[in-house]
């Protein structure tokens, strides 16, 4: 489906628009899926019949203005929140029917800004990722140690294992959280605006890291250019509904940006790897 077709607000009556989303060719098979999920809070509908099937091994970007429901959708996918309507399934089983531990061995979550007041080291934090794999009373197995070691190595933290959490910069903390998520050995990784509060170098480094992991990832992002550069698929939410999905090239059009964000922009195909590059020109004139 194309972006222009779905940006008509009247066409999204009960959510069928969103049901044909990224990677729907694998429908009915393995993996994490949201099927027409809805969620209300305080009388307002935050999500309204959103469907999402992240393409295996690819990075799916969630875009949308503030309050469009990105974080809520991620929380539903993680099973931290339960949908009011619709269902989230893992390998075709509804999430509430899968044990919490089993979910945590499949899906790892990186929050926007995690913090603790405990005096934990980098190693301590990454080891938390093994909790769903370990039984009460049992000591850490060789597999646990290996998962932690490999997570630290993949995130470039091998020489920082004993650094205290409180001494880390924002970029390092996010890196540690991703290492913790990797120690869970997930097949799906959910990240909620992981580049918030990072400088541009760390934003690029973090997203490069995520794309190089080759794990099915869903990442909420604010920066359209970063989304264009790093995501394989994009899903755009507005007021709790999917208004566009597809490749960055198909989704990020001048019309969509004007419609969803209320911003005038020019989109050229001269970004890295000929991906779309967006230049913002100013606020769109209010109709």
């Amino acid at each position, binding site marked *: 489906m194309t972006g222009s077709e779905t940006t008509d607000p009247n066409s999204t009556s009960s959510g069928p628009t969103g049901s044909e989303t990224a990677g729907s060719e694998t429908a009915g098979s393995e993996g994490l899926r949201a099927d027409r999920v809805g969620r209300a809070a305080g009388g307002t509908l935050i999500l309204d019949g959103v469907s999402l099937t992240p393409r295996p091994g690819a990075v799916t970007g969630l875009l949308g203005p503030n309050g469009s429901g990105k974080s809520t959708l991620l*929380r539903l996918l*993680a*099973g*931290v929140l339960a949908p009011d309507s619709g269902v989230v399934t893992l390998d075709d089983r509804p999430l509430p029917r899968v*044990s*919490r*531990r*089993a*979910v*945590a*061995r499949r*899906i*790892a*979550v990186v*929050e926007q800004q*995690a*913090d*603790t*007041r*405990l*005096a*934990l080291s980098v190693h*301590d*934090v990454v080891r*938390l*990722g093994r*909790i*769903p794999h*370990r039984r*009460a*009373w049992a000591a850490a197995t060789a597999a646990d*140690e290996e998962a932690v*070691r490999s997570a630290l190595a993949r995130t470039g933290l*091998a*020489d*920082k*294992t*004993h*650094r*205290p959490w*409180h*001494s880390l910069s924002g970029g390092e903390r996010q890196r540690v959280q991703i290492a913790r998520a990797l120690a*869970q050995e997930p097949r799906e990784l959910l990240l909620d605006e992981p580049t918030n509060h990072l400088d541009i170098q760390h934003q690029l480094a973090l997203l490069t890291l995520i794309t190089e992991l080759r794990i099915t990832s869903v990442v909420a992002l604010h920066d359209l250019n970063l989304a264009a550069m790093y995501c394989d698929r994009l899903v755009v939410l507005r007021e709790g509904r999917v208004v566009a999905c597809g490749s960055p090239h198909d989704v990020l059009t001048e019309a969509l940006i004007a419609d969803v964000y209320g911003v005038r922009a020019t989109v050229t195909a001269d970004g890295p790897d000929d991906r779309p590059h967006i230049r913002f020109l100013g606020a769109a004139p209010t109709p």
Partner: protein
Amino acid sequence: MTAAPSASKTAASEAPSRGARAAAVGGLRRTLLWASGLALLCASVAVAITIGPADIAVGDVWSAVAAHLGWGRARLTPLRDGIVWNLRLPRTLLAAVCGAGLAVCGAVMQSLLRNPLADPFVLGVSSGASTGAVLVVVLGAGGGLLSVSGGAFLGALVSFALVLLLSHTLGGTTDRVVLAGVAAMQLFSALTSFVVMTAADAETTRGIMFWLLGSLSGADWTDVTVGAAALVVALTVCLGHARTLDAFAFGQDAALSLGVSVARTRLVLLCTTALLTAALVSSAGAIGFVGLVLPHAARVLTGPGHTRLLPATALTGAVFLVWVDTLARTVLDPQEVPVGVVTSLIGVPAFVAVLYRAKGTR
């Protein structure tokens, strides 16, 4: 912390064999640490028993205990044997049990509620217990069927049930649990004061004051047995949840996404700590400070991982209260100071010193 040298060392020891050897050495060191901790506790108990108006040596303690356990014959006169076996030993053991139990409850509450000010009494258990005890002592509630400690235990449970109900209706978040506990604490303290002011005579008031501040002077073997049983059960449950408690480091949602059933865990651990606290408070009164502060001291010793923190907290709490109670019963001899008063008088400066030393490592 010593960042540079230790970091380079770990980078070098990435080879699995060296890692395994380091782990083995760490395991040995840990075993030694626990062994010496337990030895320190046993020695503390043995030595604390010898201190007091009647002159008793450590050897006398051993032989009295051995004789009662059926090894060897009694060397002591019945009077001195009674002092060891019926007075000082149960009292010292109850001190150890209370110290360990209250400190563990504090450590669990602080992690579970993510609040460094949480302590075993934050669930309103102690104030409920005092109201129950006062109702029995002053108004004769229960018509002679209820002992003071029985009344205290019932009061503690009623108060805890109220806190659970209140925090559930208020939304069930950790903040609400703490707020509901504070509300219950205020309510039951007011009730206690009201009953004491309106109905008690001076003598009863004095007795109750002693109880409210915490005292181990009435310790007998029943108290020790009940307290120790509760401690063993609660410690087993909490240690079984040690890793689950670790998962709360980054908050509830993080714990959920690490596979923890947050609601169930919270209920199980709150009930466990409340029951242990109720059992301890009903025999020793509300001994403050231990549950609030000892976990912080233990955290400085072991770090925040609960598999090590909980046993360490239990050991430090036990040793601490054994010595504080010894001081409480001897410092103004023949008068006795409520142990709760001494815990705070000694504990606060010690706590400040510990936190001050820990400041540099953060």
